[in-house]
């Protein structure tokens, strides 16, 4: 890997630079293709009339119509959305409170608290899933959609808190004091100043948590019950039990959806960065 070309007194020829740059660009392009190729292939085959073959047998929207007539997929999507929205909604509140609390107070055991709050980010899903299952079984809590929500809140909370904490550490520490100084009560200061200032981070944290929640397979699988079935669980069982190409169509729909979401998230983050400098 070549280093950055520099303006030195030595005759570093311009040609070498451009060759190196193009060489790197070529590798990067190849890796970009690597990233997008599988997605493009899914999209491509979602329009393929053939059921099994990898060869092209004509354009067809058949799999899309299969997909849109598949009530199980939609029921699963509904469950997933319900879980994600509920979990992210609760996490938005709890995660923000936690980030603010950790930034504001000093207390005994704070390091431990913070460490525990980071755990969901690093512990493998399988371990969280197993632990949650054992916990729920131990207390005879019947599994249903709510247990999925409860377990999703654990990691959504952590992600929201981390993103909000990052923003908090970049904020002027005196903003809340300024609001108090101008006559706002602590509650007003929180609602009218701190919360709006944190809002870009809260939103992007929520989007991140939302995507992770929508993508989670293991934790949902272990905590689902009573008829709750999330989209990843449905996809997983279909991928394992033999896929019809409507899964390709589903991929395209989901990828487009999450692509839009991703751009919204990035835009918000970008806006947040722009407004941060004060």
């Amino acid at each position: 890997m070549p280093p950055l070309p520099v303006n030195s007194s030595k005759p570093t020829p311009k040609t070498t630079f451009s060759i190196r740059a193009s060489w790197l660009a070529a590798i990067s392009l190849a890796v970009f293709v690597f990233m997008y190729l599988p997605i493009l292939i899914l999209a491509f085959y979602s329009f393929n009339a053939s059921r099994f073959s990898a060869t092209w047998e004509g354009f067809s929207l058949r799999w899309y119509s299969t997909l849109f007539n598949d009530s199980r997929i939609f029921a699963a999507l509904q469950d997933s959305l319900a879980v994600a929205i509920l979990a992210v909604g609760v996490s938005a509140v709890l995660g923000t409170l936690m980030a603010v609390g950790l930034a504001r107070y000093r207390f005994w055991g704070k390091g431990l608290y913070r460490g525990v709050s980071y755990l969901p980010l690093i512990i493998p899903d399988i371990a969280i899933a197993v632990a949650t299952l054992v916990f729920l079984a131990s207390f005879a809590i019947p599994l249903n959609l709510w247990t999925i929500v409860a377990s999703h809140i654990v990691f959504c909370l952590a992600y929201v808190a981390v993103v909000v904490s990052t923003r908090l550490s970049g904020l002027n520490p005196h903003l809340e004091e300024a609001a108090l100084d101008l006559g706002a009560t602590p509650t007003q200061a929180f609602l009218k100043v701190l919360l709006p200032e944190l809002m870009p981070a809260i939103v992007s944290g929520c989007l991140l948590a939302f995507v992770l929640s929508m993508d989670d397979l293991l934790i949902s699988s272990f905590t689902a019950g009573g008829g709750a079935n999330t989209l990843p669980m449905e996809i997983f069982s279909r991928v394992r039990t033999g896929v019809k190409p409507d899964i390709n169509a589903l991929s395209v729909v989901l990828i487009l959806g999450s692509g839009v979401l991703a751009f919204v998230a990035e835009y918000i983050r970008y806006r947040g960065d722009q407004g941060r400098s004060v």
Partner: protein
Amino acid sequence: MNTRRPRFYPGRSPRIANTRRGFLQLSAAALSGAVLSNCARNLADVSSEESTSSAAADGGTLNVYSWANYSDQELLDSFQAKTGIEVVVDTYDSNETMLAKMQAGGGSAYSIIYPSDYMVTQMIELDMLTPLDKSRLVGLENLRSQWQDPVYDPGSAHSVAATWGTTGFVYNPDNLGTTLTGWDYFWENGGSLNRQITLLNDVREVMGGVLHSLGYSYNSEDPAELEEAYNRLVELKPAIANFITNGWEDQVSSGDVLVSMAYSVDALSLVEENPNMEYVIPETGSSLWTDAMVIPKSAPNPDAAYEWLNFLLVPENAASLVGRLKFATPNEVAYDQLSDELKADTKLFPPQDLLDRCEGIAPVSEEATELYDQYWTQLTST
């Protein structure tokens, strides 16, 4: 998209019987106090706990927990038309998953479950099943006698047989270039079958099949025989693409793999869809299994569950499922109503001489179970 995991005979009973008291005493004596004893008690005894806390108890819905293709929209619609009860079906892909979910409290919504034979026994021993009130069942006498008093549930006290079947291989004769008759083919052609076959993700079926092909019992407990079977499988390992109970359909249809071991229900569904495929029961015989319908103790809507059982005991309803879902029905009256074509389908209803060579999977001793598990772990983990 089918899933199942069946056995004919109660399995592993010695390990399950002495559960609750020992669990409680030991855990109480142990350091853990309330939490673990709570945990232990509940692990052993979830079923009776959760009936009170279940959701969805309204008379209008029946939650069914079953294998993936055990019902279709037509069945659900006609059931709802007749009873006014809406049915919601959730699926599992192995008996163990179902049991784990039920024990973990995930099954509180279900009023009907479809465990396989040995799992019925296990759930009875775990005190998870409601004894059936025979006075509320109509048409139980239509079942063949062997299913009126099955080995796995004497007197059908807790279960109603739903379907039965065999285990065999699915393949495309054109792709394979020859006709498959049994297990021996794999060792004769092992070298050329580089990751070209899939086997069921089931220790007793796979080990049993190999044992049977070697001339031993499906339920052998002889360590020497087991080791021989294990070694045969190790020899076969390079030829095995995966151990999957489901998902082989696409692979074998597209030619990614040449042969898949499968249950008859799934296999015949595929064959119907893709006539190039063929299902074969090894000529030396295979396993025979039954899947039954049960009402868990935690069932929130047992009334609807009885409606469901009665609905499926109606011969016409059972017979229509045979055609649509390739159910081999245990219902004698329903069988009599089948078209001659279906009756003559030797894959669905194998001839008696072949059935005689088949064997149900019976429980083995605890030591043998350990051995099976150990060999299975080694086989799948290496």
